[in-house]
């Protein structure tokens, strides 16, 4: 039996504690999101007559987007980018590094972690400049290392270049997360398996992977969403050449802030939001299936 006064007090306390946070979320998240949905229904522009007097044009922005081959291209490019750099690149490489070096301790491991994390913590603009310098056709470091080759990396393999770039940049997060997860494996399990004659591959498949499945899915959820919304490639390729790296965020930026079509940009943002929700739901389904 709980004292009704105490319960009321607890409820009031909870409300008092939550209100500021909820207000912040309402002002900075919910309102802008709803406002974006509204803008997506208008012909609002950054300049011109539609900047002063925008009109509601219904779903025209959405039908225009769905009929725009550039939007379809952008969606496809984004999927490849997420699959290549987040799922295969960052998660794959991150897990491989964490697994291979799981028994390392001491300065060697610290050095490895520092190296990987460095790529993660340098500001985007600096990193973008480093990669432009690295991949430049005539004066690039990579071509110099290949014996004065003149391979136009960002021109001939633009999407691959930014996939490799983003893998390099983001692997640290996955590696740290997986490293932590692998540390939670009871050493006795692996020991027993080894004594029973299980190979390294069998230990990985039958013990490690099932145990940290939750970590893997959470990690995939986070990095897929981050990569989906990643804008850094724009700093390297500006979406080009000829839209080969025109991911959805770049497409939105081009339309909203280069072509000044804010209404159209808002509509695409809403579509992007929907795609993000779908990705999240799929991962959460998988997570729930586990428990």
């Amino acid at each position, binding site marked *: 039996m709980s004292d009704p006064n105490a319960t009321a007090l607890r409820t009031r306390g909870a409300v008092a504690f939550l209100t500021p946070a909820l207000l912040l979320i309402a002002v900075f998240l919910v309102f802008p999101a709803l406002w974006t949905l509204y803008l997506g229904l208008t012909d609002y522009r950054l300049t011109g007559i539609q*900047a002063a007097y925008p009109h509601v044009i219904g779903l025209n922005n959405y039908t225009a987007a769905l009929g725009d081959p550039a939007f379809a291209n952008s969606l496809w490019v984004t999927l490849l980018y997420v699959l290549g750099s987040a799922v295969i690149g960052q998660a794959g490489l991150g897990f491989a590094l964490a697994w291979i070096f799981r028994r390392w301790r001491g300065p060697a491991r610290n050095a490895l972690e520092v190296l990987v994390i460095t790529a993660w913590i340098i500001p985007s603009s600096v990193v973008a400049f480093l990669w432009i310098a690295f991949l430049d056709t005539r004066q690039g470091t990579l071509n110099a290392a290949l014996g004065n080759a003149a391979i136009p990396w960002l021109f001939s393999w633009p999407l691959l270049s930014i996939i490799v770039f983003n893998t390099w940049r983001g692997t640290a997060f996955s590696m740290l997360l997986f490293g932590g997860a692998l540390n939670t494996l009871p050493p006795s399990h692996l020991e027993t398996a080894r004594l029973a004659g299980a190979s390294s591959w069998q230990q990985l498949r039958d013990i490690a992977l099932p145990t940290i499945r939750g970590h893997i899915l959470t990690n995939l959820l986070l990095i897929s969403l981050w990569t989906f919304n990643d804008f850094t490639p724009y700093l390297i390729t500006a979406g080009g050449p000829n839209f080969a790296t025109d991911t959805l965020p770049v497409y939105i930026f081009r339309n909203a802030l280069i072509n000044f079509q804010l209404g159209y940009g808002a509509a695409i943002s809403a579509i992007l939001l929907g795609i993000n929700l779908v990705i999240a739901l799929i991962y*959460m389904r998988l997570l729930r299936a586990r428990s």
Partner: protein
Amino acid sequence: MNAKRHVARMTVLLATAALLVTACSGSSSPPATSAPASSAGASSPAGSPITLTIAANAVVGGKSNQEAAWITNYVIPTFEKQMAAQGENVTVNFNGTGVADEQYKAQLALDLKSGSGADVFDMDGIWIGEFAQANYIKPLNQIVPAADGWDGWAQITPAVQANMSYQGQRYGIPSGTDGRFLYFNKSVFAKAGLPADWQPTSWQDILTAAQTIKSKVPGVTPLQIDAGTAMGEATTAQGFLPLLVGTGVKLYDESTQKWQGNTTQIQDVLNFYKQVYTTGLGDPQIQLAAKGRDQSFQEFSQEKIGILGESDYMWRGVINPTGGVDPMQDRNTEVGWTLMPAMTPGSGVNGQSFVSISGGGGRVLNPNTKYPKEAWALLSFMASKDAVLQYTNGQAQITQRNDVNSQILSSDPLLTFVATKVLPLTVYRPGFAVYPQVSQALQLASQEVFAGKSVSDAATEYNNTLVQLVGADHVASGS
């Protein structure tokens, strides 16, 4: 337990998504109706400190160094001293950037939309219409009634004033004008056996010279005519429109009130682009790269480009041995220039055999300025004879002022060439708010023809965009 985790994940998710959405949609406030600045901005009493800011797409040691250095070293100290002599305590700050023009424009629009921004800022003339329609800028005489009485207007020709005007109202003081023509590298030409006084009289002459360079001077890109969306307005002003007026039409015909849609003339231009960039005469990589225009400047200065279509800006701002971004010590002997020919002799607008396109920027007052009187004093000071003379400082530059031009005209051969040969032939871009959007559609079409599309497909697609922008009644198509 599960539910709690679910909520936590949903929160993370929504936060991520909403942040992205707001980041991408820019400011979320409704378009502000700005209060009339003239009533809000009473002058401060003498002696109390006033701060003014100048914004320009120029940085000392980088882009448009000449202007940035002039503002920092001359305008600010001189103006502050003049104001102090009148008993006003004015401090002027310079807010310089060095980015692509489209980025500068977006920054400007966002600043003005939120009611902030510099008091006096640089703008390209072709942006005036769309900024005026959005109520971001106002006619000068509405901000400062005294603006119409400025003695400097008499020195600025009406065509140049029109660059910074919209619907007959002056929105800013022009800071000069420019012209487009072809540059060529004389030592590349010598190696190819081409004359140092080269003067092509048709597009075919340009292509023939480029083919000669291609076969005789390996390692050099024979010809660059700006194309593609990455170059932005440079593509339209330096490439597409000079070509188009060479076919005998203007992008917008005042008499029929129609824009050029899918016409034979537009297709002729697209065919020329296709020829240049699919037969190895031009380097499509430069046109598609994120910093392609900078790359074309750099390669021209390093003798890696034979012929380049550009404006006089390159001469004074890029390859200038003193203060250029890519200085050429031997500029005056190495670099040749020649008029842009029409498609065939006599096929250009008004039956001309040679053509050009002009534009030009200027400086505008922020309608939200707290000190309109002082801001106008600064703006008009920057366009005074002394200040403009100081700006040119002996360098090649068509200024806005006739009195300055006549004084410095003969000091530089390229300046003389532009003033006497190019400007009489030139055509100004249409001063409509919708022009920048039409321009973007042209940029896209010019890129698509060498990225694989057929000329007629690219022209049809351009035509569709144009119809959406201006309505079918205002689009000319066919021949």
